[in-house]
């Protein structure tokens, strides 16, 4: 644009049109069309089934938003699954004795607090986030088991279950509202604020960020706290939809969330990512689950097929990195 030179103009175009960025959308479309064709008589294409996919993915989508921030800053959060269970149980127990508002505060607060612990250990004690969150993942999986002696706690407060689960507003289910609002805010913060730019710079080149006056430890603390808080929110959404909380909530979500985020175009090493991509990645994972069940695959076959598809998607979306 500034200095005309034909071959650099071409280079600029090639660098701006990056196929890798669109892999998730193409993959989503391919899987959708595949199921739409294969399962045309099994009810895959019904509005009910499709909206169910979105509802079931809501907690994973919410966690994925947090992980986009964490991974963009060059960190990882393995503890999100355990946070979901702790937050859901803490909320359920609190609601039973002190009501809905206290339950929400305690549930979200638990998530934020665990996120703060992760973040402080990474940012100020300078431990690698992989090890810190691996440890807190195990630690809080234990805490959630001991909290209620492995018992399930039911949530009977209808305002709560409506707000976080089965209710709807303007005939749109509340879980869809949560998804849309969280994605919109997440995208805005990630793409259009100084904080988002500093997260990306930190993950890209922490030293460059630091000499440019960005407080790298604060960014690391912030992203892990956000991730913890959003995992706490995901816990409330599970408790609301299932009208109960149990230590198994979120247990298997970690791999799904990481896959959704990476397939959605966020680099594992930081510096680049996409909130909208993570949404599409997470819907893709939900659709995959749903379609494979409708196809009548056994649980073990589902796991194998899902693993293979994730492997393919990750390979395609990361290929460009080591050019």
């Amino acid at each position, binding site marked *: 644009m500034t200095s005309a030179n034909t071959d650099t103009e071409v280079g600029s175009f090639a660098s701006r049109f990056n196929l890798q960025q669109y892999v998730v959308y193409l993959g989503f479309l391919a899987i959708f069309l595949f199921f739409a064709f294969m399962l045309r008589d099994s009810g895959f294409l019904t509005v009910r089934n499709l909206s169910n996919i979105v509802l079931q993915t809501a907690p994973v989508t919410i966690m994925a938003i947090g992980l986009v921030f964490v991974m963009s800053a060059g960190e990882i959060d393995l503890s999100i699954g355990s946070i979901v269970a702790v937050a859901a149980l803490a909320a359920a127990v609190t609601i039973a004795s002190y009501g809905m508002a206290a339950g929400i505060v305690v549930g979200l607060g638990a998530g934020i607090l665990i996120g703060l612990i992760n973040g402080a250990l990474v940012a100020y004690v300078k431990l690698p986030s992989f090890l810190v969150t691996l440890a807190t993942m195990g630690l809080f999986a234990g805490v959630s088991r001991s909290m209620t002696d492995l018992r399930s706690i039911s949530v009977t407060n209808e305002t709560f279950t409506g707000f976080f689960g089965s209710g709807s507003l303007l005939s749109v289910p509340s879980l869809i509202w949560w998804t849309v609002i969280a994605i919109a805010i997440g995208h805005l913060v990630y793409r259009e604020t100084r904080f988002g730019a500093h997260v990306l710079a930190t993950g890209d080149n922490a030293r460059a960020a630091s000499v440019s*006056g960005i407080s790298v430890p604060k960014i690391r603390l912030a992203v892990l706290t956000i991730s913890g808080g959003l995992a706490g929110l995901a816990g409330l959404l599970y408790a609301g939809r299932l009208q109960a909380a149990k230590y198994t909530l979120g247990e298997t979500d970690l791999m799904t969330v990481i896959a959704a985020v990476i397939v959605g175009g966020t680099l594992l090493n930081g510096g680049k990512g996409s909130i909208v991509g993570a949404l599409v990645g997470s819907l893709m994972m939900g659709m995959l689950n749903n379609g494979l069940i409708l196809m009548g695959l056994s649980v073990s076959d589902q796991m194998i097929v899902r693993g293979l598809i994730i492997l393919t998607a990750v390979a395609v979306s990361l290929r460009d990195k080591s050019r």
Partner: protein
Amino acid sequence: MNAPILQLQDIRKNFGGITAIENFSLEVFPGEIVALVGDNGAGKSTLVKIVSGVHPPSSGTIAIEGRPVMMSNATMGRAHGIEVVYQDLALADQQTVYMNMFLGREPLNRFGLLDRRRMIAETEKLVKELDVRIPSAHATIRDLSGGQRQGVAIARATHWASKLILLDEPTAALGVAETAKVEEIVLSLKQRNVGILIITHSLDQVFKLSDRICVLRRGKQIGVRETKKTDKNEIIAMITGLQQQ
């Protein structure tokens, strides 16, 4: 000549019991390029850190436009109008040129969001003025050549430096043609009326760019020469210590 833009007086820096810099005094005037030369370990990098504010000196004074300043980190150095171009290019590779130009100091619009339009416009203007040949302000840093990257780093420093630009071996990682281009850009900075302090190992570059040469050896200032009134042999002798002054 006008007043010096940077004035270092009797600077001394100790790390524990080791004296890294002693009795260092230097003045840099606006529109002037001063080269700082010396062998490895002579204390050049320490001096850059002192002037940029990363390390406060153990004793001595730093004055900017005649006013003494106290700096204890690089943010304070930047606030005083001092910018550094590092030899290993402190750029974020996956981000665009314009985001790097404004890294850590992004302008916001009235909604409190990033003002991309302004960042792009100012980047394009500056890149054109300095004749840094990059495809566009939107280009990603990692798609640029080493010379283009260093051009971006210098453009960034130029954009923010109101007083002094420190160039720490700006061409150490560049090829011949790219070095020539960067040297051209550095020379063009003189018109901007800022002081320029350049550290380099290449004596050819020193004689091509600088107005004065300051020689350091083992933390001591050996002498300052006007580039026109000296030659390579004298400078080499001063650097190596084979001829005492």
